[in-house]
């Protein structure tokens, strides 16, 4: 046993000697290619991998110590030449996908990049069908790879837009994969606050990877994508809700919080209605800036078209522009837009009209607001009353499908009147409300009729019962008299 341990330790020591001997031997690839001054060799001098002790043969294979070129670049010695296609990424992943190996180099980098790339939109097969669309080297370069924190890196925040744009701003190239995908993202980005600051050398504002991710970039139609409509608010909030991160820019950081409470936020985040607007619907995505004061109604109007049209032709348009009041926002606020109710209309404490239209300073608008509210209140009241009567009749087992059918019209008038408010014209408003009131009255009449019919049935039964009782009693009396006159015996 002792002997065995002795022999083992000898072997280990001697092999260690051989290894340290090899280290001191000259790397023939480097020395030769340096002499040749190839661009690859030049770039490689600053490569982070060289700093970590890696050399040409670690990626290209071959015998680095052979002085003879044929020997050094012998395929039998594992020489592969320039890696092609997927070979590139696999080669990188040999170390970058192996946590143990990365630890040896004292690296704290993640090791899932290649896995992420495979799953990403760039991991699909390219035009040739032989390799993935993007390899590691597509973005990171091949021989001059430096840390992402190094401003010389193509994936340093300030350089990312240009790196991505290499392909994404090239219409002829992009057309071959997705003809409908825009190629003006960089152009738009440069007009955005993010892009402008990025250009000025601030690495903090969002660039492509901040929103789209890096290795794991997914199509916008992929529900897992960080830019899938449902995920956008959280993606933006990643920076915009981070008070410390945003501190130097002096803008609020409660937009996400407010948005989550808004009718839009509830629709998108709670009800998962992807047609509801996310941040980018109003601010733009690549060209993200807050909309200008006078263009708000246009932005909101992309969905709320009728309201926007009515507003634009209303007397408020000019008044708002003159006073530099943001259009829709003045009454509805911006991020925290709540479901509007009739309470917003009129001159009560909750109402928004009276903020400008005070009784003394602006009596005309004050009265109009009051009257519009009265009209709307009466329509709401009449509709609710008609509905209640219809329900009552229905609960009594009466058939009121006809009235229910008409009730739809009254409800429609109410919905339309909510839109019609935005014309800020009392007459036009009344035109929408009046037919609704008429229908509600009609339905009320029908429902009342149905309830009356219910009581009519009971009365009918009462009358019939009375008749039958009288008949039964008189029949009974008749029988008794009949039998008094002759008991029959046999």
């Amino acid at each position, binding site marked *: 046993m002792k002997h065995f341990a002795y022999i083992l330790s000898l072997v280990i020591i001697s092999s260690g000697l051989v290894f340290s001997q090899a280290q001191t031997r000259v790397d023939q690839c480097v020395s030769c290619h340096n002499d040749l001054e190839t661009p690859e060799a030049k770039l490689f001098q600053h490569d982070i991998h060289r700093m970590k002790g890696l050399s040409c043969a670690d990626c290209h294979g071959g015998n680095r110590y052979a002085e003879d070129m044929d020997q050094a670049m012998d395929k039998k010695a594992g020489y592969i030449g320039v890696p092609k296609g997927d070979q590139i990424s696999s080669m990188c992943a040999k170390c970058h996908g192996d946590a143990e190996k990365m630890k040896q180099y004292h690296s704290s980098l993640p090791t899932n990049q290649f896995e992420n790339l495979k799953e990403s939109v760039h991991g699909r097969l390219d035009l040739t069908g032989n390799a993935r669309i993007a390899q590691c080297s597509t973005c990171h370069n091949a021989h001059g790879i430096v840390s992402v924190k190094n401003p010389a890196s193509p994936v340093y925040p300030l350089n990312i837009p240009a790196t991505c744009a290499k392909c994404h701003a090239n219409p002829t190239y992009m057309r071959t994969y997705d003809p409908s995908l825009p190629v003006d993202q960089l152009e738009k980005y440069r007009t955005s606050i993010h892009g402008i600051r990025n250009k000025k050398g601030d690495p903090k504002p969002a660039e492509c990877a901040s929103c789209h991710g890096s290795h794991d970039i997914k199509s916008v139609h992929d529900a897992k994508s960080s830019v899938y409509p449902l995920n956008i608010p959280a993606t933006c909030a990643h920076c915009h809700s981070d008070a410390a991160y945003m501190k130097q820019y002096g803008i609020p950081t409660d937009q996400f919080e407010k948005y989550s409470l808004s009718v839009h936020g509830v629709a998108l985040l709670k009800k998962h*209605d992807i*047609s509801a607007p996310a941040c980018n619907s109003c601010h733009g995505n690549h060209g993200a800036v807050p909309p200008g004061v006078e263009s708000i109604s246009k932005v909101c109007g992309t*969905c*709320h*078209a*009728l309201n926007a049209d009515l507003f634009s032709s209303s007397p408020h348009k000019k008044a708002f522009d003159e006073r530099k009041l943001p259009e829709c926002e003045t009454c509805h606020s911006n991020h925290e837009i709540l479901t509007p109710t009739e309470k917003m209309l009129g001159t009560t404490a909750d109402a928004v009209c009276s903020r400008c239209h005070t009784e003394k300073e602006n009596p005309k608008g004050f009265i109009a607001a009051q009257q519009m509210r009265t009209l709307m209140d009466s329509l709401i009241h009449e509709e609710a009353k008609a509905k209640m009567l219809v329900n009552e009749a229905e609960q009594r087992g009466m058939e009121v*499908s006809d009235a*229910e*059918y008409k009730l*739809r*019209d009254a*409800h*429609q008038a109410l*919905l*339309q009147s909510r*839109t019609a408010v935005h014309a800020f014209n009392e007459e036009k408003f009344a035109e929408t409300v009046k037919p609704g009131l008429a229908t509600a009255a009609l339905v009320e009449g029908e429902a009342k009729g149905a309830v009356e019919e219910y009581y009519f049935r009971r009365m009918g039964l009462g*009358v*019939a019962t009375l*008749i*039958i009782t*009288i*008949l039964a009693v*008189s*029949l009974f*009396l*008749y029988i008794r*008299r*009949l039998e008094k*006159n*002759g008991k029959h015996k046999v």
Partner: protein
Amino acid sequence: MIASPEDTPKAPEPEKRDFLKLILGGGIIAWLASVLYPILSYLKPPVQSEVEVQSVKAGKISAFEKDSGTIVRFGNKPVILIRTANGNFRAFSAVCTHLACTVQYRKDMGVIWCACHNGKYDLNGRNISGPPPRPLDEYRVIVQGEEVVISKKS
């Protein structure tokens, strides 16, 4: 009622007898009326002459202009029957999928349009613009001779 031939009761007091018989006769007549009235009313054809819920007759082909839309009542819900510019018929639920307003055909835009919030659907019922979250449900249109019939799509 045939009187029994054997037991003709002797009349005790003519007054009382007449009164009782009067009530009895009147009662029978009133009873008959109270039974016959519901039956006769039942037999009177109702306004809507038949059950028509699975399908509904919209009218004659000639009643619908090309490039127009008509609201047809289908059970308890409105259906929009559209005759396209090339004369084909299509029918969709006329209940907007946004807030249940009744939609209409807009000749100028060539779409199905909801007046409440400017929702638009194409002539296949797909929501193409505005707030509607879902397409309109489609109904089947069958042309039987001259008659246009709308039925539920099963």
